[in-house]
């Protein structure tokens, strides 16, 4: 499998490589091996993406125990559905992150039951250090923060509430007290600006 140039720059930035310089060291190639049942490749994929998957689930769900369950489901889904990864539709990391984010927001929206203090005590907030796995991941995070900082306040708030909290655009409109049409536009304008700032195609 050859790298599509439009997704390799993004892919390069995430996590450590399984075997630098060797075929199979990029995430897309690893997924191809996983699709053939290669469990060593799957272990390498775990190393590359588990911090992203768990981090998203934790951000959206807030509860470490629940985040861990969702992360486990998503990681297994990667094993099961690796064959469905289609490089013509985007980078491997974007596919993995989309699976994780969708599952987390679908779950948080499906669950409308009230939290009780007792349950919070049963699952005490554990402070996991946010450990970027590599220097590269840290640089990525810094770059994203800098680009987010270049957006207007409304673009930034709309994107942050949707992505890190799982709010729908209608909920964001209510939270920020602006018309839904404005939120739609700001999400799109903001992401376009973010895309250009981050240099992804």
């Amino acid at each position: 499998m050859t790298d599509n140039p439009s997704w390799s720059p993004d892919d390069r930035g995430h996590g450590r490589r399984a075997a630098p310089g060797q075929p199979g060291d990029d995430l897309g190639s690893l997924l191809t091996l996983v699709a053939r049942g290669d469990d060593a490749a799957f272990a390498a994929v775990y190393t590359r993406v588990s911090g992203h998957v768990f981090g998203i689930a934790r951000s959206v769900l807030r509860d470490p125990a629940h985040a861990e369950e969702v992360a486990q489901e998503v990681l297994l889904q990667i094993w099961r559905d690796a064959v469905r990864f289609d490089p013509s539709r985007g980078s491997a990391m974007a596919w993995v992150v989309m699976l994780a984010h969708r599952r987390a927001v679908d779950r948080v929206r499906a669950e409308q039951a009230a939290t009780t203090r007792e349950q919070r005590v049963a699952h005490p907030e554990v402070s996991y250090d946010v450990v970027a796995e590599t220097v590269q991941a840290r640089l990525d995070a810094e770059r994203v923060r800098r680009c987010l900082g270049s957006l207007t306040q409304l673009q930034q708030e709309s994107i942050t509430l949707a992505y890190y909290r799982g709010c729908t655009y209608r909920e964001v409109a209510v939270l920020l007290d602006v018309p839904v049409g404005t939120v739609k536009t700001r999400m799109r304008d903001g992401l376009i600006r973010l895309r250009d700032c981050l240099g992804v195609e």
Partner: protein
Amino acid sequence: MGRFSWRRTDPHMLAGAYALDALDSADRARFERHLSGCPACRQETRGLREASALLAATSVTTPPDGLRDRVLAAAAHTRQNQPASSPPRPAWPRRRWGIAAACGVLAVALAFGGIAYNAQHQLHQMQARSHAIAAVLGAPDATMMTGRAASGTGRATVVMSHRARALVFTTAALPAPPSAHRYELWLMGPSGSRPVGMLPAAHGGTTPPMIVTGLRAGDQVAVTVEPASGSRQPTMPMIVTVALPS
């Protein structure tokens, strides 16, 4: 909105919301139908999806130790899907989740609050307040806690950010206070109680969210019934309390 405005609005405008997973399932399905017949939209959506995926870089968190072994062991016993087969997505496990959607809960509270405040033409204050609230809800360390009323009727919800040193407070389903009385919100800490303010009147059973700043270590938030003009010291008993993580 929604159903009726869908056809009239340009579906392109939803590309950002789609890439952020900010569409509910019905809107998402409609947008995907639109995508299937719109190559330009697919192209744009792909780029926006790459951008949104990079947002995950800021929340990378090392998972708990046991996860790796569990995932690898489960994979060893899990059959992989084949290219041709397209089995339906497995149903969510039927288990009860204790955590509520912070966004859903607060969006409802804000909807009521927003209507009431706008009616009073306090638009600027309202918007400043909305931004302060959004800052807490959007903070990376935002945590939600709920306390049940001591009487068993009603509850209070707190979303707190240590980093923003602030919290957002709202209540649901509390009984109306006795006449000429109102609910007052307090911060109660090791060095005594500080009044925060009177709770606004509930709309549809939910009080508009209050933003609370100036938190100190060991504080809990509490609501008491006080004369309508407020008190300097809380009158016991407390109606509902929420302990804050330190």
